[in-house]
């Protein structure tokens, strides 16, 4: 099956920021994303866990978006304008897709 190269951006970010990130992605004409829950984590700010939390302040989510390489920089710029001062991690990796016109 023929596949085509795209970029997969994985963003782990504080839950209260999610709406702003997706709004920014939409502005950057990203065609889609998927949000995955996160149970717990560890980083420079220490350990945290979602267990028992009633608010969203100390919770994180993981957003995954597949984008065309040509749009990668624009997307990263948009995302970093938001997350640079927040708690979170952004990684980019190579993936292949079957229906390239979708991204």
């Amino acid at each position, binding site marked *: 099956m023929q596949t085509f190269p795209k970029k997969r951006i994985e963003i782990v970010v*504080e839950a*209260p*920021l999610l709406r*702003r990130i997706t709004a920014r992605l939409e502005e950057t004409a990203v065609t889609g994303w998927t949000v995955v829950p996160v149970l717990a984590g560890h980083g420079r*700010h*220490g*350990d*945290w*866990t*979602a*267990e*028992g*939390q*009633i*608010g*969203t*302040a*100390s919770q994180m989510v993981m957003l995954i978006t597949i984008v065309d390489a040509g749009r990668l920089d624009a997307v990263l710029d948009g995302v970093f*304008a*938001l997350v640079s*001062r*927040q*708690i979170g991690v952004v990684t980019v990796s190579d993936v292949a897709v079957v229906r390239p016109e979708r991204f």
Partner: protein
Amino acid sequence: MLTLALQNLLSPMVLFFVLGLAAALARSDLTVPEQVAKLLALYLLMAIGFKGGAEVAHHGIDGTLIATLAAGILLSFATPFLAYAILRVTTRLDPVNAAAVAAHYGSISAVTLVAVTGVLTQLGIAWDGYMVAVAAAMETPAIVAALLIARRRTKEAAPSDSRATLLREVAFNGSIVILVGAFLIGAATGTRGATMLKPFLVDAFPGVLCLFLLDMGLVAGRGLAQGRRHLTPAVTAFAVVMPLIGAALAAALAVAIGLSPGSTAVLITLAASASYIAVPAAMRLALPQANPAVALTLSLGVTFPFNLIVGIPLYIAVAGRIAA
């Protein structure tokens, strides 16, 4: 008053909180799943809002409502300035972190509200249903105050979006919407609604509150274990003294207004409480440079246990003496 304190200490609610605290510190794997915790909070806010509304439907609203609302808003807006000043003088917190902490202490903790009404109900002390609306009104002004402070005292660039969006989000945050919504529904449906929902919203309330406080104990305990390093003596002292200052201000206003003993106790408790649902989330957006662990460790790890175990019986006893 000693009896009250002892009785409070031996109430199932306080004991379940202590159990959660102890389990967390003993590194037990006991947990309340996240969505369950959110259900418990949703239930408690719905119950207390509805109960307040039904009470208003029953007794009506008298002139003190407006005065109490004004007092609540004033307390919420003014306290952060005071808290900020104290923090800057007595602790080493930088301006941004001090402003964030100040916002937490100006605003209120819905969970503490739930706890104080639980104790009042247990003691058979009535409180005015509209105090629920007062609580809702006290949530946001502190955030405005903190943003003013942060803008003046820090040279930080503007946060990622406009103040207006942020305040709108805070005003419509889930815990306010369910509290105020259930209040209005209680007021609209009155006795008929109250009878219908009594087994679920009233009879089960103390039990659900115990389960919820177990969770709060677990979360507070884990937060303390994690956030220990932020608890310098000065900062810890703030988390105990600030509630008492807020309580004193609220007590004075309550007397001036002429609130009933129950409502006085509620207003004092609100003023003495520190937010940890609405404000923490708002601060992550408005002041992202602030370290969230500082305010949360203080608010949930120190002030909430202090209020639950020592504060609430104290505030109720004081209210009983000073109120009309």
